[in-house]
């Protein structure tokens, strides 16, 4: 099974991550980590007319967490920011092609989505503190 998990595409994104780095003057930057693994991800966004104009990430951790965030940045670049709200964990797992991860490793795959959602919420609440209430009923990513 591990041959299925660590397919070429996962190893490729792990070793050659896309959109890795920082942004000068990002509109929002946010960091989170997974206490189980110690995986860490920072996401930086530039937003124009409610579209994700630029996205960069920094991070370290296992192949699954880092490939997942690398692939997610490609998935959302140039997409409307509020679309992030509708992204479900299944979308992420399908995107990286890992739909039967166990309960421990699934958190590695979903940390990327958790941090991106945090970035979106921070972006909106920084601009309008009231808008935070819009996200109160957001289900937890995991």
């Amino acid at each position: 099974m591990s041959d299925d998990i660590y397919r070429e595409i996962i190893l490729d994104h792990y070793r050659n991550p896309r959109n890795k780095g920082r942004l000068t003057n990002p509109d929002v930057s946010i960091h989170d980590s997974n206490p189980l693994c110690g995986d860490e991800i920072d996401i930086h966004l530039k937003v124009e007319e409610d579209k994700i104009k630029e996205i960069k990430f920094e991070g370290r951790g296992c192949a699954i967490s880092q490939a997942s965030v690398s692939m997610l940045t490609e998935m959302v670049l140039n997409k409307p920011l509020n679309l992030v709200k509708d992204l479900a964990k299944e979308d992420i797992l399908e995107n990286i092609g890992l739909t039967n991860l166990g309960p421990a490793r699934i958190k590695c795959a979903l940390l990327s989505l958790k941090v991106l959602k945090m970035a979106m919420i921070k972006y909106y609440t920084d601009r309008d503190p009231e808008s935070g209430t819009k996200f109160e009923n957001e289900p937890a990513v995991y």
Partner: protein
Amino acid sequence: MQKSALNAYEIRRDFPILGRKVGNNKTLVYLDNAATTQKPSSVINAIHDYYSNYNANIHRTVHQLGEEATIAYEQTREKVAKFINARFKEEIIFTRNATEAINLVSHTWGRQHIGGGDSIVISEMEHHSNIVPWQILKMEKNANLCYIGVDDEGCLRLDDYENFLETGNVRLIALSEMSNVLGTILPLNEIIRMAHRRGIPVLVDAAQSVPHMPVDVQRSDCDFLAFSAHKMLGPTGVGILYVKREILEGMQPFIGGGDMIKEVHKQGAIYNDLPYRFEGGTSNIAGVIGFGAALDYLNMIGMDRVRDHEIDITKYALAALTDFKNVKLYGPRDAIDRGGVISFNIADIHPHDLATIMNERGIAIRSGHHCAQVLMERLDVSATSRASFYIYNTKEEVDIFIDALDDARRIFRV
């Protein structure tokens, strides 16, 4: 008479869990013993026997069940005292785990004796359980927390230690006798002698040492010693704190409540005698009784033989790993200087990915920061993989582990 080496294959028969299959119908290879060990039937049966035949609360019971339970509970206290060669059984306090044992000291002795500007000295290779309690105390008292460095071999920098002692502000030394990541065993007798020459007490985090080697609190002359039952064949939920009686006598209580008092009146209470003063509320009676059976089991084998077996198997594993391509090993090179704990990394394979690959082959190893993030920073890694051995592990299992590492290298193409 020279004792023969222990027979791990014979020992395995006493551990029901070692027969089970995991993952893809693979026989379990359990190499996560530094986290917790498996339990022999005698321990499981002792707990079962207590609940089946003499379950009752202890110490203040007149009826027969309570008497039997009290006797079994107190017998374990005597066994623990003997196991670490304490002078008095009153020096043995049961807690929930080693972490609570260390917190007991920081909350009682620590609050009484550490003041503003005083220093507590620990090291860079401590487990979080021997860091965070002192951080809390430090903030409460405006004290200093000083870290003895770790050299590239994974040994304590004794020159750092001497420099701290020279400052004259040090009120407590708190060190792990065996690192849970590097396996490093400290020259404890010398460290304690140096501290005592200046009148400074020493707390020993023995969570990794007591389960794996002979420990003698009178010989080392340590003042406090903490360890956990579940890391030495016993059940979870039982920790042990040893404190020298003359120190214990001056310590304020920790948890207030039943069993730790003699008399309670509206505005005050008279506290119970040692060690009951420090065991407020109903203890983990079944766990303590189960731990008694674990100590019997280890005594039957003999801690010298436990240590010899682990040196043997660690030497074997280190030799195989040293020849392995792209492997980075952490800690002392010689098995004599370390416990049966090996931390490593292979090329750019993250430890969690490695653990997943191992898991599919039935092998349980640990991966991550091992509750030692300060050490991870010192080693400049975010995580390591760790294999740790005990009395039931065999060289055959080490071979299976090494083969699986080869698989991981193939999958990751390194």
